[in-house]
């Protein structure tokens, strides 16, 4: 089936419970298609972060199947997972900046982990710092940055390596509306180049800022599909004129 080959992520019958508690996520089933922009909404406690943790491979589901980039990640041997993770960009809700590294080194981390030569690290990181408005804070430790600044560093770190799938957990929670818009524009720009974007947010105003976005709504651990687009190619696909980045392999 050509449709399923196209999927970048596919969840089938996924459930997640911690210990012996009731499931925090039940019967989750959806597909993410390359180059689309998704919002994940839901009240706090609905399971957004749990779903994102499954998406960025921090957590194994209690049941169900998850495919990513065409492979079943549940049965992948552990040592294969880093190559999946390197195709993801993650903005953690609590940022998770490395506190003893400067803003520059935090943003450079994904490049260094992936083995990019030191000579090739400096310019993209410096450019990214400028772009998120922190060009003059390159050497600052996270503790000396404001909440909004930390968030921008976290986002810069998530996008620096141009991931295939960007997962952002409340990425605009701590920034002013102007910066929030700017960050959403950054996600959109990435998205236009082929990165699939999943943004979890409870800010409904944000949804309207990205007209072509698709919405996944979580309610008490159940996924609803208001745009009817989570299993099938979306009704309003992104414009055909948008350049599709070559889906390179090697992963």
């Amino acid at each position, binding site marked *: 089936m050509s449709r399923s080959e196209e999927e970048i992520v596919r969840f089938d019958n996924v459930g997640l419970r911690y210990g012996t508690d009731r499931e925090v996520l039940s019967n989750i089933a959806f597909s993410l298609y390359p180059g689309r922009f998704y919002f994940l909404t839901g009240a706090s406690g609905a399971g957004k972060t749990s779903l994102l943790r499954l998406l*960025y*491979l*921090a*957590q*194994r589901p209690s049941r169900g199947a998850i495919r990513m980039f065409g492979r079943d990640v549940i049965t992948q041997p*552990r*040592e294969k*997972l*880093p*190559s*999946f*993770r*390197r*195709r*993801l960009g*993650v903005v953690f809700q609590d940022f*998770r*900046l*490395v*506190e*003893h*590294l400067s803003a520059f*080194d935090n943003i*450079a*981390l*994904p*490049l*260094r*982990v*992936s*083995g*990019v030569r*030191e000579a*090739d690290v400096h310019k*993209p990181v410096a*450019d*990214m710092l*400028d*772009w998120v408005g922190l060009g003059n804070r390159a050497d600052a430790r996270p503790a000396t940055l404001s909440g909004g600044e930390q968030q921008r560093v976290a986002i810069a*770190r998530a*996008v*620096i*390596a*141009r991931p295939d799938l960007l997962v952002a957990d409340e990425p605009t929670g701590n920034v002013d509306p102007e910066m929030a818009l*700017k960050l959403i*524009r*950054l996600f959109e*720009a*990435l998205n236009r*180049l082929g990165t699939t974007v999943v943004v979890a947010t409870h800010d409904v105003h944000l949804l309207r800022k990205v007209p072509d976005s698709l919405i996944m709504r979580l309610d008490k651990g159940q996924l609803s599909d208001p745009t009817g687009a989570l299993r099938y190619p979306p009704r309003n696909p992104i414009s055909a004129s948008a350049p599709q*980045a070559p889906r*390179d392999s*090697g*992963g």
Partner: protein
Amino acid sequence: MSGPPVMTRVIERGLAPLKGRRASHLLPRARLGGPMPWVIAIMVALTVLAAGGALALTNLVDRARADLAGGVTVQIVEADPVLRAAQADRTLAVLRGFPGVDTLRRVPQAELEALIEPWLGGGVRSEVVPLPALIDVRLDGEVGEATLDRLRSALAEVAPDARIDAQSDWLGPVFSAIAALRWLAIGLIALLAFTSAAAVWLAARNALNANRSTIEVVHLLGGTDGQIARIFQRSVLIDAALGGGVGLVLGWIALTLLGAQFAALDAGLVQGGGLGGFDWLLMALVPFGAIAIALLTARMTVLASLRKML
């Protein structure tokens, strides 16, 4: 608004090693830190002492064995000085023609008196306290029971009062006591190695906990277990090398001082237990062993802890 800056893929998706400066950037505070180098220093110093002791005892036994290997003592136990002298003369004559005899020496009367002086005081006349005549025989090669038997039968006629002993027999119990001490030293070295590994294990676990959030982030950004373990190994290497170097020097100093003390004792047996240049080099391997144990322990600890993460 200008577009975001990084839109070219710079990443090779390989699992390249994260090492050198790049790794040092990552966990500058992953140093096992604090007491670790000192614990390793103490362990290495104690191990060097134990190893030095074992090597000295080995040298002592080897040298004593070599000294005594071909040695045979013939005693003529006869109270009558005339008869004793006659038997000793005949014994010497027979031994001169005996095959395999290297050197032959009749211990002079003055030397015999010097030997008993510590017990009976000076000026003891041989008429009052008869002393056996002693003949020190040195044969080529080891002295076995067979050789002793041949000597006994050769001397039975000419010196009926001769008692013949291999010199190495006297020190047999001493040798076995020293062998036991050597095993004790080897056991100590093994225990110290085990303790060092346990100390590193604890320190690595602490360092892991202290840096857990960083490790999780690196893990979630696609860092491999090997990459993360290497970061820790790097800091363990620095700690262990530091501690090992200090420990070796401390151990060497202690052994040198001890050696000087024993040398001052001026006792033949103890002096045989000196340490040669090769022995000192052998002890220099101890820190390398400690580093290897520390690296291996740290790696296994980190990997075991990472395996609990997805």
